[in-house]
């Protein structure tokens, strides 16, 4: 224990700035992948709920396939596999695209559940005031569904933040890759990885704390309905 | 009723119970003789449920003591002070008191017979065949022999409550506690449960029954206790308590109950 403290005393000044710098990349990767997953996921959810059969089929197929494959395999396909076809990505954008497209499948299920949780009477009421089904979705259902999906979206975000560590395996520059470099150059893997884990914890805990409060608020709100 | 000289089966001494700042029981003293049937009546929130739950230590009293046949329940006296006993000893003491809940609390993953035999098999360690034979007999006794293999969800409320009574009887308890056993039932189902309880009283079982059924209290009880605001306001034979209550609060309560 005291030896560990001594290691930190000696190296913390050198490691911490590097790791924090890399954590910035982790956050950027998470944010970009989240946005991609959000947009694609919402489109997939709408497609899956649409009256057009081929759209529904495509969305279902996409979701089933993506949910059956590890994100690491998808990163490898994009980063190494697509290069065969002349599509060469840097590791960082490859990771963003991989996590985004993979995450979209989960996001789609979250959105779909959220939309379905809104009573059909809401749509009907919107139709009776002359809205089109699409307008009813946009102005009546989605705003209500957003409230429902907020906690699962936040949980997805936290999971994504941690999953980006996997991008280190394709050498995308982020926190875990920097940690691995430092661990092998310093021969102090324990101390370095613990420090990296602590940084992930610091990034994820506030969000999960807020999410849980939100969830508690919502479930209380529901009790009164 | 047994003679005046019989030792009390249950003795509650100066029982207090607080939930946080709320004082729910404020000094309850009570004796029940073997074979007595006692009903407890009183307005909502007066502490009737809490009293029953303190007697079998589902709630730990804030102070005061409970004795079964002069043995302390839930505590031990080590010569200087009282200490709370462990789960295992407490479980053993609870086998002497059966309890029937307002909302039945049957175990939904077990059949009627499974509910009745779980205690005998797992607690009393009876051989399964013996426990099943006895359980079947108890279900016959409450008129549900033909429902032994049904799950609770397929039974009516009245049937569920009778299974719950059989479940309590299966442990051969010395004392039966009932907490408003008919309050959650549709009116037409109340009778079948009260009939079972009446039969148990006639058998000479020792029973402590919290109830809003005034007829039952009048007809079956040896003694009626009126509780209000966490104390026993008055008690007496039903004929006297119902016809001639000495306290204003009792009179007021009875008048309201009759009007309903």
């Amino acid at each position, binding site marked *: 224990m005291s030896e560990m403290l001594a290691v930190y005393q000696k190296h913390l000044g050198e490691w911490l700035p590097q790791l924090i710098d890399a954590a910035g990349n982790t956050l950027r990767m998470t944010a970009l992948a989240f946005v991609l997953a959000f947009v694609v996921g919402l489109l997939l959810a709408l497609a899956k709920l649409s009256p057009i059969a081929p759209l529904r089929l495509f969305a279902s197929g996409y979701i089933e396939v993506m949910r*059956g494959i590890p994100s690491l395999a998808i990163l490898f*396909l994009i980063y190494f596999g697509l*290069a065969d076809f002349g599509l060469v990505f840097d590791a960082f954008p490859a990771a963003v695209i991989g996590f985004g497209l993979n995450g979209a499948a989960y996001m789609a299920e979250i959105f779909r559940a959220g939309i379905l949780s809104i009573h059909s009477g809401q749509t009907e009421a919107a139709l009776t005031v002359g809205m089109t089904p699409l307008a009813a979705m946009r102005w009546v259902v989605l705003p209500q569904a957003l409230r429902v999906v907020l906690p699962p979206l936040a949980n997805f975000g936290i999971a994504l933040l941690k999953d980006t560590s996997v991008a280190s395996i394709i050498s995308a520059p982020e926190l875990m890759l920097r940690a691995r470099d430092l*661990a092998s150059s310093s021969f102090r893997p*324990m101390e370095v990885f613990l420090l990296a884990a602590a940084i992930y*914890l610091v990034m994820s805990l506030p969000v*999960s704390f807020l999410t849980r409060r939100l969830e508690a608020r919502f479930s209380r709100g529901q009790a009164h309905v | 009723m047994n003679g005046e000289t019989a030792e009390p089966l249950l003795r509650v001494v100066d029982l207090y119970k607080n939930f946080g700042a709320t004082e729910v029981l404020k000094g309850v003293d009570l004796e029940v003789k073997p074979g007595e049937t006692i009903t407890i009546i009183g307005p909502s929130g007066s502490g009737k449920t809490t009293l029953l739950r303190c007697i079998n230590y589902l709630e730990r009293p804030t102070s005061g003591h409970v004795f079964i046949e002069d043995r302390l329940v839930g505590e031990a006296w080590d010569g200087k002070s009282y200490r709370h006993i462990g789960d295992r000893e407490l*479980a053993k003491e609870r086998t002497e008191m059966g309890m029937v809940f307002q909302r039945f609390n049957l175990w939904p*993953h077990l059949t009627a017979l499974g509910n009745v035999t779980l205690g005998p098999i797992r607690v009393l360690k009876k051989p399964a065949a013996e426990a099943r034979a006895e359980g079947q007999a108890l279900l016959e006794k409450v008129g549900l022999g033909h429902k032994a293999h049904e799950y609770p969800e397929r039974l009516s409320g009245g049937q569920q409550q009778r299974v719950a009574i059989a479940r309590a009887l299966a442990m051969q308890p010395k004392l039966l506690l009932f907490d408003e056993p008919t309050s959650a039932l549709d009116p037409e189902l109340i009778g079948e449960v009260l009939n079972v309880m009446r039969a148990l009283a006639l058998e000479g079982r020792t029973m402590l029954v919290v109830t809003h059924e005034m007829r039952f209290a009048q007809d079956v009880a040896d003694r009626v206790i009126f509780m209000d605001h966490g104390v026993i306001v008055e008690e007496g034979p039903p004929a006297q308590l119902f016809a001639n209550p000495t306290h204003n609060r009792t009179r007021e309560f009875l008048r309201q109950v009759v009007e309903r």
Partner: protein
Amino acid sequence: MLFWERFVDNLPYFLEVLIPAAGMTVRIAAGAFVLAIVVGLVLALLQTIRIGLVTLVVRSYIELIRGTPVLAQLFILYFGLTEVGIRFTPIQAAILGLGLNGGAYLAEVFRAGIESIHAGQMEAALTVGMTPLTAMRYVILPQALRVVVPPTTNYSIALLKDTAIVSAVAAPEIMFKARNLVMETYLSAQIYLLVAIMYLVMSLILAFISRRLERRLGESGTTGQAGAA
């Protein structure tokens, strides 16, 4: 079209390498799953006894595990512990890392399941003289089981996919063997596509088994649905 020709030509060789590796993936996932269930159950039960210090330790474990990447936990086990002289084989580290991680998730699932059972169930058990532990065993857990099976089977599918990351500590499962194959043949697109298909097939099979299991439990005619309907 060259792509498909090469793919078909090499398929037998790829499969010869990757199918045994898939067996290793399944073994790692199964080992981690069993460990996760045991750890999760113990942690969930420890929280029900309501001893402040115990709860604090258990909660901290759960929060720490759930707040950090499983890859970091794996590296701490595999690389970090060598500093104190503890060396795991890649497979041991994989099972331990994924299992301890999953234990924290399942602990939450099991706790929610236990808490979903009405307090009256426990009380009724206590009144017939059961100890809290006996009541847990014969009254609460059998009922909680049906609540926790769907999230637990979902977890098993996530776990199967998570095993891919243990290639990072050179555990000889699909992903690791695939990377070696790529280094050998340079046919990265074909190989990773095949890998993706293999995971998909395994996930679908597991999902199918899970659904059957859930239906069987749903039918085994006890609580809930029929009565509520």
